[in-house]
Protein backbone atom coordinates (compact mmCIF):
# COMPACT_ATOMS: atom_id res chain seq x y z
CA UNK A 1 0.00 0.00 0.00
CA UNK A 2 1.23 3.50 -0.78
CA UNK A 3 1.70 5.71 2.23
CA UNK A 4 2.60 9.25 3.11
CA UNK A 5 4.83 10.13 6.05
CA UNK A 6 4.31 13.39 7.85
CA UNK A 7 6.30 14.47 10.89
CA UNK A 8 3.38 15.94 12.79
CA UNK A 9 0.67 14.72 15.12
CA UNK A 10 -2.20 12.91 13.39
CA UNK A 11 -4.65 15.78 13.91
CA UNK A 12 -2.19 18.36 12.55
CA UNK A 13 -1.28 16.09 9.64
CA UNK A 14 -4.95 15.80 8.65
CA UNK A 15 -5.52 19.54 9.09
CA UNK A 16 -2.46 20.42 6.98
CA UNK A 17 -3.59 18.05 4.28
CA UNK A 18 -7.10 19.52 4.34
CA UNK A 19 -5.72 23.02 4.18
CA UNK A 20 -3.73 22.20 1.01
CA UNK A 21 -6.77 20.51 -0.46
CA UNK A 22 -8.79 23.64 0.16
CA UNK A 23 -6.10 25.79 -1.42
CA UNK A 24 -5.92 23.64 -4.55
CA UNK A 25 -9.75 23.71 -4.62
CA UNK A 26 -9.88 19.94 -4.64
CA UNK A 27 -12.50 19.96 -1.91
CA UNK A 28 -15.14 22.45 -0.84
CA UNK A 29 -15.65 21.30 2.71
CA UNK A 30 -14.92 18.87 5.47
CA UNK A 31 -17.09 16.90 7.86
CA UNK A 32 -15.28 16.05 11.05
CA UNK A 33 -15.29 16.00 14.80
CA UNK A 34 -14.70 19.55 16.09
CA UNK A 35 -14.03 21.14 19.41
CA UNK A 36 -15.31 24.55 20.46
CA UNK A 37 -16.17 24.56 24.17
CA UNK A 38 -17.43 21.05 23.56
CA UNK A 39 -17.05 18.16 21.12
CA UNK A 40 -19.49 17.95 18.21
CA UNK A 41 -19.63 17.04 14.56
CA UNK A 42 -19.02 19.98 12.26
CA UNK A 43 -19.48 20.56 8.55
CA UNK A 44 -16.85 23.20 7.77
CA UNK A 45 -16.39 25.06 4.48
CA UNK A 46 -14.34 28.02 5.72
CA UNK A 47 -10.62 27.24 5.59
CA UNK A 48 -9.97 29.55 8.54
CA UNK A 49 -12.08 27.38 10.81
CA UNK A 50 -9.98 24.27 10.23
CA UNK A 51 -8.30 24.93 13.58
CA UNK A 52 -11.54 23.86 15.28
CA UNK A 53 -11.10 20.32 13.96
CA UNK A 54 -10.08 17.47 16.26
CA UNK A 55 -10.57 14.61 13.81
CA UNK A 56 -9.01 11.85 15.87
CA UNK A 57 -10.04 12.74 19.42
CA UNK A 58 -11.47 9.60 21.06
CA UNK A 59 -14.96 11.04 21.39
CA UNK A 60 -18.22 10.14 19.68
CA UNK A 61 -20.82 12.78 20.60
CA UNK A 62 -23.19 11.22 18.07
CA UNK A 63 -22.75 8.55 15.43
CA UNK A 64 -21.26 10.44 12.47
CA UNK A 65 -22.91 8.07 10.01
CA UNK A 66 -26.32 9.12 11.28
CA UNK A 67 -25.37 12.81 11.15
CA UNK A 68 -24.31 12.45 7.50
CA UNK A 69 -27.53 10.68 6.70
CA UNK A 70 -29.41 13.72 7.97
CA UNK A 71 -27.40 15.89 5.57
CA UNK A 72 -27.52 13.68 2.51
CA UNK A 73 -30.82 11.82 2.68
CA UNK A 74 -32.75 14.06 0.29
CA UNK A 75 -29.91 14.63 -2.16
CA UNK A 76 -26.16 14.10 -2.26
CA UNK A 77 -23.80 16.90 -1.28
CA UNK A 78 -23.06 18.71 -4.56
CA UNK A 79 -19.32 19.37 -4.21
CA UNK A 80 -16.53 17.07 -3.07
CA UNK A 81 -15.97 17.08 0.68
CA UNK A 82 -13.68 15.11 2.94
CA UNK A 83 -15.35 13.15 5.70
CA UNK A 84 -13.40 11.92 8.74
CA UNK A 85 -15.20 9.04 10.41
CA UNK A 86 -14.45 6.14 12.71
CA UNK A 87 -14.76 2.64 11.24
CA UNK A 88 -18.11 1.92 12.92
CA UNK A 89 -19.52 5.26 11.80
CA UNK A 90 -18.44 4.56 8.24
CA UNK A 91 -20.07 1.13 8.37
CA UNK A 92 -23.24 2.69 9.77
CA UNK A 93 -23.23 5.16 6.88
CA UNK A 94 -22.94 2.29 4.40
CA UNK A 95 -25.91 0.56 6.02
CA UNK A 96 -27.87 3.81 5.81
CA UNK A 97 -27.08 4.04 2.10
CA UNK A 98 -28.50 0.53 1.68
CA UNK A 99 -31.59 1.64 3.60
CA UNK A 100 -31.90 4.63 1.26
CA UNK A 101 -31.27 7.05 4.09
CA UNK A 102 -28.00 8.55 2.85
CA UNK A 103 -26.03 9.37 -0.28
CA UNK A 104 -22.26 9.06 -0.36
CA UNK A 105 -21.67 10.71 -3.72
CA UNK A 106 -18.87 13.30 -3.51
CA UNK A 107 -17.76 12.09 -0.09
CA UNK A 108 -14.08 11.21 0.29
CA UNK A 109 -13.43 9.17 3.42
CA UNK A 110 -10.55 9.45 5.85
CA UNK A 111 -10.66 6.96 8.67
CA UNK A 112 -8.26 5.44 11.15
CA UNK A 113 -7.60 2.26 13.01
CA UNK A 114 -9.72 2.90 16.05
CA UNK A 115 -8.51 2.66 19.64
CA UNK A 116 -12.08 3.20 20.87
CA UNK A 117 -13.84 6.22 22.28
CA UNK A 118 -14.37 7.54 25.77
CA UNK A 119 -17.71 7.03 27.39
CA UNK A 120 -19.74 10.25 27.10
CA UNK A 121 -19.82 10.76 30.85
CA UNK A 122 -16.03 11.01 30.81
CA UNK A 123 -16.24 14.02 28.50
CA UNK A 124 -16.30 16.90 30.90
CA UNK A 125 -13.76 19.40 32.08
CA UNK A 126 -10.20 18.83 31.01
CA UNK A 127 -10.05 15.56 29.13
CA UNK A 128 -6.62 16.02 27.59
CA UNK A 129 -5.04 13.53 29.90
CA UNK A 130 -7.73 10.94 29.25
CA UNK A 131 -7.34 11.47 25.53
CA UNK A 132 -3.59 10.97 25.72
CA UNK A 133 -4.05 7.77 27.71
CA UNK A 134 -6.78 6.25 25.64
CA UNK A 135 -4.69 3.12 25.10
CA UNK A 136 -4.82 2.51 28.86
CA UNK A 137 -8.51 1.60 28.33
CA UNK A 138 -9.55 3.96 31.11
CA UNK A 139 -13.08 5.21 30.60
CA UNK A 140 -13.55 3.57 27.22
CA UNK A 141 -16.95 2.40 26.07
CA UNK A 142 -17.46 -1.26 26.79
CA UNK A 143 -18.55 -1.81 23.18
CA UNK A 144 -15.20 -0.38 22.02
CA UNK A 145 -13.25 -2.67 24.28
CA UNK A 146 -14.61 -5.77 22.56
CA UNK A 147 -14.94 -4.33 19.05
CA UNK A 148 -13.10 -6.48 16.53
CA UNK A 149 -13.93 -4.34 13.51
CA UNK A 150 -11.54 -1.52 14.26
CA UNK A 151 -9.78 -1.48 10.87
CA UNK A 152 -11.73 0.68 8.39
CA UNK A 153 -12.36 -1.26 5.19
CA UNK A 154 -14.02 1.32 3.02
CA UNK A 155 -12.03 4.50 3.59
CA UNK A 156 -9.92 6.19 0.92
CA UNK A 157 -7.19 7.27 3.33
CA UNK A 158 -6.41 5.43 6.54
CA UNK A 159 -4.33 6.46 9.53
CA UNK A 160 -2.79 3.86 11.84
CA UNK A 161 -3.92 3.49 15.42
CA UNK A 162 -3.75 6.77 17.31
CA UNK A 163 -2.85 6.20 20.93
CA UNK A 164 -1.30 9.45 22.05
CA UNK A 165 2.24 8.10 21.71
CA UNK A 166 3.08 8.83 18.09
CA UNK A 167 2.75 12.56 18.42
CA UNK A 168 5.36 13.64 15.91
CA UNK A 169 5.07 11.14 13.17
CA UNK A 170 2.00 10.19 11.22
CA UNK A 171 1.57 7.79 8.36
CA UNK A 172 -1.37 8.18 6.00
CA UNK A 173 -2.10 5.01 4.06
CA UNK A 174 -3.65 5.37 0.64
CA UNK A 175 -6.25 2.65 0.25
CA UNK A 176 -8.04 3.58 -2.98
CA UNK A 177 -7.43 5.20 -6.35
CA UNK A 178 -9.67 8.02 -5.29
CA UNK A 179 -7.40 8.62 -2.33
CA UNK A 180 -4.38 8.67 -4.61
CA UNK A 181 -6.08 11.11 -6.96
CA UNK A 182 -6.84 13.36 -4.04
CA UNK A 183 -3.18 13.57 -3.07
CA UNK A 184 -1.91 14.15 -6.60
CA UNK A 185 -0.08 17.43 -6.89
CA UNK A 186 -0.11 17.89 -3.13
CA UNK A 187 2.22 15.30 -1.72
CA UNK A 188 4.74 13.50 -3.84
CA UNK A 189 6.96 11.72 -1.37
CA UNK A 190 5.04 8.49 -1.17
CA UNK A 191 6.57 5.38 0.33
CA UNK A 192 5.50 1.75 0.20
CA UNK A 193 4.31 0.51 3.60
CA UNK A 194 1.71 -1.74 5.18
CA UNK A 195 -0.21 -1.77 8.45
CA UNK A 196 1.74 -3.13 11.38
CA UNK A 197 0.03 -6.50 11.29
CA UNK A 198 1.62 -7.75 14.51
CA UNK A 199 0.14 -4.85 16.49
CA UNK A 200 -3.22 -5.29 14.81
CA UNK A 201 -3.45 -8.97 15.60
CA UNK A 202 -2.38 -8.43 19.20
CA UNK A 203 -5.11 -5.80 19.62
CA UNK A 204 -7.60 -8.11 17.96
CA UNK A 205 -6.67 -10.99 20.26
CA UNK A 206 -6.99 -8.84 23.34
CA UNK A 207 -10.39 -7.62 22.26
CA UNK A 208 -11.61 -11.10 21.40
CA UNK A 209 -10.58 -12.25 24.86
CA UNK A 210 -12.43 -9.33 26.42
CA UNK A 211 -15.47 -10.09 24.29
CA UNK A 212 -15.56 -13.71 25.32
CA UNK A 213 -15.31 -12.70 28.95
CA UNK A 214 -18.15 -10.19 28.54
CA UNK A 215 -20.37 -12.71 26.73
CA UNK A 216 -19.62 -15.17 29.51
CA UNK A 217 -20.71 -12.67 32.14
CA UNK A 218 -23.89 -11.50 30.48
CA UNK A 219 -25.17 -14.94 29.31
CA UNK A 220 -28.15 -13.69 27.33
CA UNK A 221 -29.07 -17.25 26.36
CA UNK A 222 -30.04 -17.86 29.99
CA UNK A 223 -32.22 -14.74 30.19
CA UNK A 224 -35.69 -16.06 29.52
CA UNK A 225 -38.43 -13.67 30.55
CA UNK A 226 -37.11 -13.28 34.14
CA UNK A 227 -33.68 -12.32 32.81
CA UNK A 228 -35.20 -9.85 30.37
CA UNK A 229 -37.21 -8.26 33.15
CA UNK A 230 -34.07 -8.13 35.22
CA UNK A 231 -32.10 -6.22 32.60
CA UNK A 232 -34.76 -4.17 30.78
CA UNK A 233 -37.32 -3.91 33.59
CA UNK A 234 -35.89 -0.65 34.82
CA UNK A 235 -35.98 0.88 31.33
CA UNK A 236 -37.75 4.23 31.59
CA UNK A 237 -38.97 4.07 27.99
CA UNK A 238 -37.16 7.27 26.99
CA UNK A 239 -36.15 5.62 23.69
CA UNK A 240 -32.83 7.47 23.77
CA UNK A 241 -31.07 4.28 22.62
CA UNK A 242 -33.15 4.31 19.46
CA UNK A 243 -32.65 8.03 18.97
CA UNK A 244 -28.88 7.68 19.23
CA UNK A 245 -28.72 4.46 17.19
CA UNK A 246 -27.44 5.12 13.67
CA UNK A 247 -29.50 2.29 12.21
CA UNK A 248 -32.79 3.20 13.93
CA UNK A 249 -33.64 5.80 11.32
CA UNK A 250 -37.44 6.11 11.38
CA UNK A 251 -38.47 9.67 12.10
CA UNK A 252 -41.84 8.39 13.21
CA UNK A 253 -40.98 5.41 15.35
CA UNK A 254 -43.66 2.74 15.76
CA UNK A 255 -42.86 2.50 19.45
CA UNK A 256 -43.50 6.24 19.89
CA UNK A 257 -46.75 6.11 17.96
CA UNK A 258 -50.30 5.99 19.26
CA UNK A 259 -50.58 2.32 18.24
CA UNK A 260 -48.08 1.52 20.96
CA UNK A 261 -49.78 3.57 23.69
CA UNK A 262 -51.00 1.96 26.88
CA UNK A 263 -54.54 3.21 26.41
CA UNK A 264 -57.68 1.62 27.88
CA UNK A 265 -57.75 -0.91 25.05
CA UNK A 266 -54.41 -2.28 26.23
CA UNK A 267 -54.52 -1.85 29.98
CA UNK A 268 -58.00 -3.29 30.47
CA UNK A 269 -57.01 -6.40 28.58
CA UNK A 270 -53.78 -6.73 30.56
CA UNK A 271 -55.54 -6.15 33.88
CA UNK A 272 -58.11 -8.78 33.10
CA UNK A 273 -55.34 -11.23 32.32
CA UNK A 274 -52.83 -10.49 35.06
CA UNK A 275 -54.65 -8.35 37.57
CA UNK A 276 -51.84 -5.78 37.52
CA UNK A 277 -49.73 -3.78 35.10
CA UNK A 278 -46.14 -2.57 35.15
CA UNK A 279 -45.54 1.01 34.05
CA UNK A 280 -43.95 2.18 31.87
CA UNK A 281 -45.24 -0.83 29.97
CA UNK A 282 -43.91 -2.53 26.88
CA UNK A 283 -40.22 -2.04 27.62
CA UNK A 284 -39.31 -5.63 26.76
CA UNK A 285 -41.47 -5.44 23.64
CA UNK A 286 -39.53 -2.32 22.66
CA UNK A 287 -36.08 -3.79 23.13
CA UNK A 288 -36.79 -7.14 21.43
CA UNK A 289 -38.62 -5.19 18.72
CA UNK A 290 -35.53 -3.12 18.16
CA UNK A 291 -33.39 -6.25 17.99
CA UNK A 292 -35.71 -7.51 15.24
CA UNK A 293 -35.48 -4.22 13.40
CA UNK A 294 -31.81 -3.37 13.62
CA UNK A 295 -29.71 -6.30 14.82
CA UNK A 296 -28.78 -7.33 11.27
CA UNK A 297 -27.30 -3.89 10.62
CA UNK A 298 -25.93 -3.19 14.13
CA UNK A 299 -22.36 -1.92 13.81
CA UNK A 300 -21.65 -2.09 17.53
CA UNK A 301 -20.85 1.60 17.99
CA UNK A 302 -22.17 1.58 21.56
CA UNK A 303 -24.09 4.87 21.33
CA UNK A 304 -27.14 3.14 22.88
CA UNK A 305 -25.33 2.11 26.07
CA UNK A 306 -23.69 5.47 26.32
CA UNK A 307 -26.88 7.54 26.19
CA UNK A 308 -28.88 5.29 28.49
CA UNK A 309 -29.74 7.45 31.52
CA UNK A 310 -30.00 4.44 33.82
CA UNK A 311 -26.95 2.59 32.50
CA UNK A 312 -28.56 -0.49 31.03
CA UNK A 313 -25.82 -2.22 28.97
CA UNK A 314 -28.02 -2.04 25.85
CA UNK A 315 -25.10 -2.16 23.43
CA UNK A 316 -23.51 -5.16 25.08
CA UNK A 317 -26.72 -7.18 24.78
CA UNK A 318 -27.38 -5.90 21.25
CA UNK A 319 -23.93 -6.65 19.89
CA UNK A 320 -24.18 -10.19 21.20
CA UNK A 321 -27.59 -10.75 19.59
CA UNK A 322 -26.33 -8.99 16.44
CA UNK A 323 -23.33 -11.28 16.15
CA UNK A 324 -25.70 -14.27 16.18
CA UNK A 325 -28.25 -12.89 13.71
CA UNK A 326 -25.58 -11.58 11.34
CA UNK A 327 -23.84 -14.95 11.55
CA UNK A 328 -27.08 -16.66 10.55
CA UNK A 329 -26.88 -14.97 7.15
CA UNK A 330 -23.09 -14.64 7.06
CA UNK A 331 -23.60 -10.90 6.84
CA UNK A 332 -21.22 -8.15 7.89
CA UNK A 333 -22.93 -4.75 8.06
CA UNK A 334 -21.16 -1.99 6.18
CA UNK A 335 -18.72 -4.32 4.42
CA UNK A 336 -19.97 -3.85 0.89
CA UNK A 337 -22.65 -1.64 -0.63
CA UNK A 338 -23.60 -4.41 -3.04
CA UNK A 339 -24.38 -6.83 -0.21
CA UNK A 340 -28.10 -6.57 0.56
CA UNK A 341 -29.45 -6.48 4.11
CA UNK A 342 -30.54 -10.11 4.68
CA UNK A 343 -34.24 -9.48 5.32
CA UNK A 344 -34.53 -7.44 2.13
CA UNK A 345 -33.58 -10.42 0.01
CA UNK A 346 -33.75 -14.24 0.04
CA UNK A 347 -32.45 -17.42 -1.52
CA UNK A 348 -34.77 -19.99 -3.04
CA UNK A 349 -32.96 -22.84 -1.31
CA UNK A 350 -32.40 -22.16 2.40
CA UNK A 351 -33.85 -22.97 5.83
CA UNK A 352 -35.48 -26.03 4.29
CA UNK A 353 -36.66 -27.38 7.63
CA UNK A 354 -38.75 -24.26 8.35
CA UNK A 355 -42.39 -24.61 7.33
CA UNK A 356 -42.29 -28.36 6.90
CA UNK A 357 -43.50 -29.11 10.43
Amino acid at each position, binding site marked *: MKALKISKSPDDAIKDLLSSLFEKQKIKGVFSLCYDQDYFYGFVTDKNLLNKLTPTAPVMPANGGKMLSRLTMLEPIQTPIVVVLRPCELRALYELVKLEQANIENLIFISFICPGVLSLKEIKGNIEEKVANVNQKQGLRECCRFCENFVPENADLILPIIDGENNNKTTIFIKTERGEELLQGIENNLVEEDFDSATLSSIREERTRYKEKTWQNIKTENFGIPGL*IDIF*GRCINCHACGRACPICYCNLCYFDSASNDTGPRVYEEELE*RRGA*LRLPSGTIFYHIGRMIHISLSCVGCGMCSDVCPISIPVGTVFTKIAEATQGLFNYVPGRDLEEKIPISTFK*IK*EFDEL*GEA
Partner: protein
Amino acid sequence: MEEKEFLPRIIGFLCKWCSYAGADLAGVSRLKMPATLIPIRVMCSSRVDPLFILAALLRGADAVLVAGCHPGDCHYQTGNYYTRRRIALLEKIFDQLGIETDRLRLAWISASEGSRFRDVITKFTQQIKEKGPNPIKKEIFL
Protein backbone atom coordinates in the same frame (compact mmCIF):
# COMPACT_ATOMS: atom_id res chain seq x y z
CA MET B 1 -62.86 -29.48 42.33
CA GLU B 2 -61.67 -31.11 39.16
CA GLU B 3 -58.90 -29.18 37.46
CA LYS B 4 -59.79 -27.99 34.00
CA GLU B 5 -57.78 -29.50 31.20
CA PHE B 6 -55.33 -27.04 29.70
CA LEU B 7 -56.44 -26.06 26.22
CA PRO B 8 -53.78 -23.94 24.50
CA ARG B 9 -54.64 -20.72 22.71
CA ILE B 10 -52.73 -20.57 19.47
CA ILE B 11 -52.77 -17.39 17.42
CA GLY B 12 -52.67 -18.31 13.74
CA PHE B 13 -51.71 -15.94 10.95
CA LEU B 14 -53.05 -17.58 7.79
CA CYS B 15 -52.39 -16.36 4.31
CA LYS B 16 -55.56 -15.65 2.35
CA TRP B 17 -54.59 -17.56 -0.77
CA CYS B 18 -53.37 -20.87 0.61
CA SER B 19 -53.54 -21.55 4.31
CA TYR B 20 -56.82 -19.79 5.06
CA ALA B 21 -58.39 -21.61 2.13
CA GLY B 22 -56.83 -24.82 3.43
CA ALA B 23 -58.40 -24.17 6.84
CA ASP B 24 -61.72 -23.53 5.11
CA LEU B 25 -61.44 -26.79 3.27
CA ALA B 26 -60.73 -28.62 6.53
CA GLY B 27 -63.89 -26.99 7.90
CA VAL B 28 -66.21 -27.84 5.04
CA SER B 29 -64.77 -31.36 4.94
CA ARG B 30 -65.79 -31.61 8.63
CA LEU B 31 -62.33 -32.78 9.68
CA LYS B 32 -62.01 -33.10 13.45
CA MET B 33 -59.30 -31.11 15.20
CA PRO B 34 -58.84 -29.36 18.56
CA ALA B 35 -60.45 -25.93 18.82
CA THR B 36 -57.24 -24.18 19.80
CA LEU B 37 -56.51 -21.92 16.85
CA ILE B 38 -57.55 -18.30 16.75
CA PRO B 39 -57.19 -17.57 13.05
CA ILE B 40 -56.24 -14.17 11.66
CA ARG B 41 -56.41 -13.82 7.91
CA VAL B 42 -53.58 -11.89 6.27
CA MET B 43 -53.13 -11.19 2.59
CA CYS B 44 -49.71 -12.87 2.59
CA SER B 45 -47.60 -14.58 5.23
CA SER B 46 -45.03 -11.83 4.59
CA ARG B 47 -47.60 -9.33 5.92
CA VAL B 48 -46.84 -10.76 9.36
CA ASP B 49 -44.51 -8.32 11.04
CA PRO B 50 -42.34 -10.22 13.55
CA LEU B 51 -43.65 -7.68 16.08
CA PHE B 52 -47.13 -9.27 15.76
CA ILE B 53 -45.68 -12.58 16.84
CA LEU B 54 -43.71 -11.02 19.67
CA ALA B 55 -46.76 -9.07 20.88
CA ALA B 56 -48.93 -12.19 20.83
CA LEU B 57 -46.43 -14.19 22.87
CA LEU B 58 -45.75 -11.37 25.36
CA ARG B 59 -49.48 -10.88 25.90
CA GLY B 60 -49.95 -14.49 26.80
CA ALA B 61 -50.72 -16.52 23.67
CA ASP B 62 -49.54 -20.08 24.26
CA ALA B 63 -48.18 -20.34 20.74
CA VAL B 64 -48.14 -18.64 17.36
CA LEU B 65 -48.58 -20.30 13.99
CA VAL B 66 -47.66 -18.54 10.77
CA ALA B 67 -48.91 -20.34 7.70
CA GLY B 68 -48.49 -19.55 4.04
CA CYS B 69 -48.21 -21.02 0.56
CA HIS B 70 -45.50 -23.56 -0.17
CA PRO B 71 -42.23 -22.02 -1.42
CA GLY B 72 -42.60 -21.26 -5.10
CA ASP B 73 -46.40 -21.06 -4.88
CA CYS B 74 -46.78 -17.60 -3.30
CA HIS B 75 -49.67 -15.65 -4.83
CA TYR B 76 -47.30 -12.67 -4.88
CA GLN B 77 -44.43 -14.74 -6.27
CA THR B 78 -41.87 -14.36 -3.50
CA GLY B 79 -43.61 -13.20 -0.28
CA ASN B 80 -43.16 -16.44 1.62
CA TYR B 81 -39.40 -16.47 1.04
CA TYR B 82 -39.20 -13.22 3.01
CA THR B 83 -41.43 -14.73 5.69
CA ARG B 84 -39.06 -17.66 6.01
CA ARG B 85 -36.07 -15.36 6.60
CA ARG B 86 -38.00 -13.32 9.17
CA ILE B 87 -39.01 -16.40 11.10
CA ALA B 88 -35.42 -17.66 11.02
CA LEU B 89 -34.28 -14.26 12.32
CA LEU B 90 -36.90 -14.21 15.07
CA GLU B 91 -36.08 -17.76 16.16
CA LYS B 92 -32.42 -16.81 16.36
CA ILE B 93 -33.18 -13.80 18.54
CA PHE B 94 -35.47 -15.85 20.81
CA ASP B 95 -32.81 -18.49 21.03
CA GLN B 96 -30.18 -15.94 22.06
CA LEU B 97 -32.49 -14.48 24.72
CA GLY B 98 -33.47 -17.83 26.21
CA ILE B 99 -37.09 -17.57 25.00
CA GLU B 100 -38.67 -20.86 23.91
CA THR B 101 -38.64 -21.09 20.12
CA ASP B 102 -40.97 -24.08 19.96
CA ARG B 103 -43.96 -21.88 20.73
CA LEU B 104 -43.51 -20.42 17.28
CA ARG B 105 -44.16 -22.40 14.15
CA LEU B 106 -44.09 -21.77 10.43
CA ALA B 107 -46.09 -24.11 8.20
CA TRP B 108 -46.65 -24.28 4.48
CA ILE B 109 -50.25 -25.32 3.81
CA SER B 110 -51.81 -25.06 0.38
CA ALA B 111 -55.49 -24.43 -0.41
CA SER B 112 -56.03 -28.10 -1.22
CA GLU B 113 -54.35 -29.43 1.93
CA GLY B 114 -57.31 -29.50 4.34
CA SER B 115 -56.02 -32.67 5.95
CA ARG B 116 -52.51 -31.23 6.31
CA PHE B 117 -54.07 -28.24 8.08
CA ARG B 118 -55.78 -30.60 10.51
CA ASP B 119 -52.55 -32.52 11.06
CA VAL B 120 -50.52 -29.37 11.73
CA ILE B 121 -53.08 -28.05 14.24
CA THR B 122 -53.46 -31.40 15.97
CA LYS B 123 -49.73 -31.98 16.29
CA PHE B 124 -48.91 -28.43 17.33
CA THR B 125 -51.71 -28.43 19.93
CA GLN B 126 -50.45 -31.71 21.33
CA GLN B 127 -46.91 -30.34 21.63
CA ILE B 128 -48.04 -27.15 23.34
CA LYS B 129 -50.25 -29.17 25.70
CA GLU B 130 -47.20 -31.14 26.72
CA LYS B 131 -45.20 -27.95 27.22
CA GLY B 132 -47.94 -26.37 29.30
CA PRO B 133 -49.15 -22.77 29.38
CA ASN B 134 -46.92 -19.92 28.27
CA PRO B 135 -44.82 -19.02 31.36
CA ILE B 136 -45.12 -15.33 30.42
CA LYS B 137 -48.66 -15.47 31.82
CA LYS B 138 -47.22 -15.99 35.27
CA GLU B 139 -45.17 -12.80 35.14
CA ILE B 140 -47.55 -10.29 36.66
CA PHE B 141 -45.39 -7.23 36.29
CA LEU B 142 -44.11 -7.81 32.78
